Every structure is written in structure tokens, then in C-alpha cells.
């Protein structure tokens, strides 16, 4: 590449020298490199200074303040948004806490209600059981009483029958009927069999 460059440089030098010899542009090709042609320096420097002055004015007066304003606006907007987001996050956290609390309250309330209902039902149940027990007891007592009555009447009937049969037997065997003797005899006989 270096050899190429040298070649290029020499070619250029030859070219410009020949051009100088041809004297087509006497001032333009005073040296080999156009960069070292000092006759164009005032022109370049003049226009460069004009350009730089204009650019500096445009940049420092218009472009850079505007970009700076845009950037700081954006920074402000971002900071504001971040703060708002932080605030919303806080709010969301509070809402979550409130929700949790409400949930816990509701759960406790439900528990209480369940407990109360259970107690009430238990009470009703107890009452019903007691009532049923009492009824059952009453019915059993009544039944017992009737059974006893039936048994008593049965015993009386048997005594009556025995007495009559004894009196009949005694009379038919020709004996005199002594009512009290018969009674006591029947009583002694029946004792133990009945009841």
C-alpha cells in the first residue's frame, strides 16, 4: 500500500508539475500537493471562519439550548413519572393491606357466625333431646302403670275365680261355706304365684 501511495504521490506530483509547466493555472499548481498551494489559503481560511462563526452562532443560540431543554424536560418527566409510579406502588400496597385486613375480618366474622350457629343448634338439639327423653319417660311410666293395672286386675280376677271355685267346691263336698276361711286359704295359696 505504501508503494501505491508513493506511486500515487509521484503521479500526482508529475501531473501537477506538468500542469504547471503547461501554465494553465499558474497560481493553482505552485507545489506538488494541492494542500500546500498557499495561494488558496486565504480563500479557505476566510470561508472556514465564516462557516465556523455561523455554526457557532447557530449551535450556541438555537440548537444546543433547545437540546438541553429537551433533555432536561425528559429527565424531569422521567423523574416525575418515577415518583408517580412510586406513589401508585405505595397506594397499591396500602390497598393490598386493606384488602388483607378486610379478608381477615370477614373470615373472623364468618368464624364467629359459624360458632354462634353451632351453639344455637346445639342448644336446640339439647332441648329437643331433653324433650324427647321426657316424653319417652312419660310414655314408659304410663305404659308401666297400665301394665300394672292389667296385672292387678288379672290377679284380682284370679283371686275371685279361685274364691268362687273354692266356695263351690266346698259346698258341693257338703261343707259349710265359711267365707273368711276360704279367703285366707286362697290368699295363702295365691301368694307367691301371683306377683
Amino acid at each position, binding site marked *: 500500500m505504501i508503494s501505491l501511495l508513493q506511486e500515487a504521490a509521484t503521479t500526482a506530483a508529475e*501531473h501537477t508539475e506538468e*500542469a504547471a509547466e503547461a501554465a494553465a493555472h499558474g497560481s493553482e499548481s505552485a507545489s506538488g500537493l494541492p494542500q500546500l498551494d498557499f495561494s*488558496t489559503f486565504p480563500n*479557505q*481560511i476566510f*470561508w472556514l471562519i465564516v462557516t465556523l462563526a455561523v455554526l457557532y452562532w447557530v449551535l450556541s443560540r438555537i440548537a444546543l439550548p433547545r437540546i438541553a431543554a429537551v433533555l432536561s424536560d425528559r429527565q424531569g418527566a422521567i423523574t416525575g413519572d418515577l415518583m408517580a409510579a412510586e406513589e401508585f406502588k405505595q397506594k397499591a400496597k396500602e390497598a393490598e393491606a386493606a384488602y388483607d385486613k378486610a379478608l381477615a375480618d370477614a373470615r373472623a366474622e364468618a368464624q364467629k357466625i359459624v360458632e354462634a350457629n353451632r351453639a344455637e343448634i346445639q342448644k336446640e338439639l339439647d332441648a329437643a333431646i331433653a324433650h324427647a327423653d321426657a316424653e319417652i319417660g312419660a310414655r314408659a311410666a304410663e305404659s308401666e302403670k297400665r301394665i300394672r293395672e292389667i296385672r292387678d286386675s288379672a290377679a284380682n280376677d284370679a283371686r275371685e275365680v279361685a274364691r268362687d271355685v273354692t266356695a263351690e267346691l266346698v259346698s258341693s263336698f257338703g261343707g259349710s261355706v265359711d267365707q273368711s276361711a276360704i279367703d285366707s286359704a286362697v290368699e295363702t295359696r295365691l301368694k307367691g304365684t301371683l306377683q
Partner: protein
Amino acid sequence: MASEAQGEEAGLSFHPMDQFLVKPLFGEGDVHWYTPTNVTLWLFIVAVAIAALLVAGTRGRAIVPNRVQSVAELAYGMTYKMVEDVTGKDGLKYFPYIMTLFMFILFSNMLGLLPKAFTVTSHIAVTGVLALAVFISVTVIGFVKNGAQFLGLFWVSSAPLVLRPILAVIEVISYFVRPVSHSIRLAGNMMAGHAVMKVFAGFAAIAVISPISILAVTAIYGLEVLVATIQAYVFTILTCVYLKDALHPQH
């Protein structure tokens, strides 16, 4: 022209330096200081392009920028950060000038890569003025801000006493070489790249070599896009470094 005829005889025509010729825009004749030339035209185009990006592009002042505005903001942000990082907060006063320099050099370099374009920054007259402007303003700022203490820049107080005079001489020389290296770096890069491209393009006249030549031109063009950006960046960051020296001359 004579050389053209000669070049055509040889089958090749290399005029890699023709692109750097300063010519009057209208008609022939001498180039006076006021003559509108191709330099004038391309300086104008550069200025218009920068205005289009930084002024017209930000016309919307949008919170959510469009493409052009975000490019303008990117350029602004990059330069602003560079000035702030290198020179510190007190250098931000000079940010508009550094931004002007950066945008001007970047756009000159980039627009100079267009076919048929004239690269204003390939001329030592242009880069020399830019570098001298930086050199003079930095020196003036240094003396105005720090007075005689600015000379402490050349007196390396951390070095042994014996070495200090020698170092001072070296520092003074290097200080005065700054504008030279500053300007020649930029102009040299621009000129060399463009000349190489032209040379490769010249080889395309030979049918056998032309594919290679065109590939080479493409590759060099890509490299030149890189160089154009990097040189604009280098010029700007060096300006910031010099400015930092002027604002804080202590080593």
C-alpha cells in the same frame, strides 16, 4: 491536460490528488480570498447538514424523540459527557465551541466520503486554523484563569530538581508542537484515505484487476468511515485535554 493524455496512453489514469484541488465555483480564474470555491460549497453543505440535524431535527422538541432528534441528542450527549469527563464542570462553559468543532469535523469527514465530494478537512489550511484556534484560545484561557501559575504546566514539580529544567524545555517544545500534530493528524488521515481510494479506483480501468480493485475500494471505504469518525473524536478529545491543561495546569 497534458498528464491526462499521458495517463490515457499508459492505459491508467491516476489523479488521486485532483480531488483536493481548490477551484472557483463559477468560471475559471484566480482564487481570491473572497472567491466562492468548491471549498465554500462544501463548507456550506456541511453547515446546512449540521443545522438540519441539530436545528431542524429537534424542531419537534419531543419528549419521546424521533430518529433524527435522537441522533442529535446522542451527538449532544456524547460531546457533553466528553467535555465534562475530561475537563470537569468548569470546562462546560466552552462546550458550545467544542460541540461546533466536533460536528464540523465529523460532518466534513463524513460528507467528504461521498463520491465527487470535496473534503474540507483534508486541507492543512482548514485543520491548521482549527488547531491554531484551539491552541491560541487554550493558551489565553490558561493565562487568564491562572495567571503566571499557568507556566507551572511546564515546571514538573514532581520530578527531581535536576531534571526539571530539561523537562521544562521538553514540555515547552511539546506544547508548541501540539497545534502542528493536532492539525496534521486530521488532514493527513483524510488526505491519505481519499488518495488511496482514488488510487485503487484508478486500477479499476484494467478489466482483470477491477474486481479486486472494487473490493479494495469497498474495504478502504469502510475503513475510512471509521477513520472519519475516529479522527473527529480524536480532534475533539485532544481539544478537551488541552483545555483541561489550561484550566488545571497542576500536574
